[in-house]
């Protein structure tokens, strides 16, 4: 295991970054009072000090507490939307790729057209149409409404190649039913690929949720990373020289995206060993 990780540096970098992030959340939740992430709980706009290691923002929130409370929320949106997206995408991809025919044409057509449309804009219309403030879970569902497009497209392409393999042919001649072949023969072979797709779907979902939040369509009450960015932009924190306000969320978001990206690359390499020669 460790030997393999050494040969696959991307995977190692991804795992290390995400482990650091997990440690930050776990230790933070054990030691930091997340109640301080509510507005007006500490003095506003304090630079970092022993008492407030990350400083405080203009609404009087302790930024360390906001990061500890908010990072899991952002990840939660990403995971819910990513899992839903890949789940729906996998089902559609197998139905389309294995059975072909009219269903395939329709599913592929929808996915192809859906992908040329800028997702963020569609999500904006959905978010604006839903009345009132959103909760974190509603955010996740909204983001998931488009998160299946990309998985459907990429997994379908994989299913198409798997379908022609010898062992699938043999299973078919042995009288295995379609669902059985999909579950017992094709699925296990696609697992590494599905894992890589899942990680990149989670990353895309987080990006979409942060995008909505920066535009002011997020859960206003929650201290998610994107909402923190919204307040930073809203209060022009950079122009005002309140550097501590934006350093922490940006570093954490960087770690999230870099960690997920390198994990995807590493998993891709497991899924497709031919990539190894080119690395």
């Amino acid at each position, binding site marked *: 295991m460790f030997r393999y990780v050494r040969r696959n540096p991307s995977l190692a970098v991804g795992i290390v970054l995400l482990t650091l992030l997990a440690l930050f959340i776990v230790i933070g939740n054990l030691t930091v009072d997340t109640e301080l992430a509510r507005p007006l709980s500490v003095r506003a706009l304090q630079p970092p000090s022993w008492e407030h290691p990350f400083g405080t923002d203009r609404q009087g929130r302790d930024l360390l507490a906001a990061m500890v409370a908010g990072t899991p929320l952002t990840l939660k949106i990403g995971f819910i939307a990513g899992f839903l997206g890949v789940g729906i995408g996998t089902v559609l991809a197998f139905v389309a790729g294995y059975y072909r025919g009219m269903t395939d044409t329709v599913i592929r057509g929808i996915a192809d057209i859906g992908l040329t*449309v*800028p997702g963020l804009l*569609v999500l*904006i*219309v959905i978010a604006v149409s839903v*009345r009132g403030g959103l909760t974190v879970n509603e955010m996740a569902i909204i983001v998931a409404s488009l998160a299946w497009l990309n998985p459907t497209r990429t997994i379908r392409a994989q299913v198409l190649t798997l379908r022609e393999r010898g062992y699938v042919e043999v299973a078919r001649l042995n009288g295995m039913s379609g669902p059985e072949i999909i579950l017992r023969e094709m699925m296990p072979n696609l697992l590494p690929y599905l894992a890589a797709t899942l990680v990149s779907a989670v990353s895309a979902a987080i990006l979409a949720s942060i995008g909505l939040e920066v535009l*002011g369509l997020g859960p206003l009450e929650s201290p998610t990373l994107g909402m923190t960015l919204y307040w930073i932009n809203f209060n022009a924190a950079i122009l005002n020289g309140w550097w501590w306000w934006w350093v922490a969320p940006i570093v954490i978001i960087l770690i999230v995206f870099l960690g*997920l990206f390198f994990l995807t690359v590493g998993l891709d390499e497991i899924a497709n060993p031919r*990539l190894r020669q080119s690395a």
Partner: protein
Amino acid sequence: MQLAYIARRFGVFLLIVWLAASLNFFLPKLSGQDPVRTKLLESAQLGGYVHAGLEDMVKEYDQRFGLDKPLWQQYLTYLRATMRLDFNYSIANYPRTVREMVGEAVPWTVGLLGTTTLLSFGIGTLLGALLAWPGAPRWMRWLMPPLWALHAIPFFLLGLILMYLLAFQVPLLPIFGGYSAGASPTLSLGFVWDVVSHALLPALSIVLVATGGWALGMRGMMVTTMGEDYVTFADAKGLKSATIFMRYCLRNAILPQTTALALALGQILSGAVLVEVIFGYPGIGALLFQAIQENDFFLIQGIVFTVIVALGLATLILDVVYPWLDPRISYRRGD
């Protein structure tokens, strides 16, 4: 054959236009109430200086969509208005129309996005090709890790960092807007420089990130292409290295790269919207942000429709140009 191909792509484009309009019409209805009407009435109750305009708007809205008429008739009316690019007045900026406001913002975004996409695609593709080429200079290998890392970052996040470094710490570049507050839009050298310098930071944050993506994609494609038998054969024939690079490898590897460009346009635009918001760049993104802040539903609908159609058009153009890049495509049907 060629004509059928173009006709099919055009059909897809029409489908996108129709979908975008239907999206605007049906999504607000799905939530059970009519948010447009609620918002109009809400702002009417708040009263104040735009009151007169609002009443006009509610009347026009009622009349136009004939809320007493059946749904399908409302839908047809809406489609007809959308085809004329008529999105009603802006709720928050009466008596300005949505079309007028979107029209002002579009050139900024087209300029910013057109330039940055062409630049990053061009540089990235060439860079990626060189990165895979054994004959490339040694130092280029050092470019890989930063390209990878940059590629994973959202545009606007890099924008924030650049803003701090190049506009706040070292005040080299203007930080906000499309041109200086006092500048008068004339065709003088000074004003052009003013506009360019305001665009530099937003452009840089897009180009730096996007170039990495194109370079990585191209490098992967080049590695595959260089393993092909015809490249080995060309090498064995003793062709010049530069010829093999340009005519054999690059020429073939660029094809999937162009397909990727057509697919990535939507994503690039989504990212650029946020960059514009961060930098207050007066394009579509900043206008959208303003519309969301002001609950200006008509403006949001107008922007969403315009952008989806514009991107559909860009994809159509790429699709039509593609057979010219790849002569094989027109002989093949289906995909």
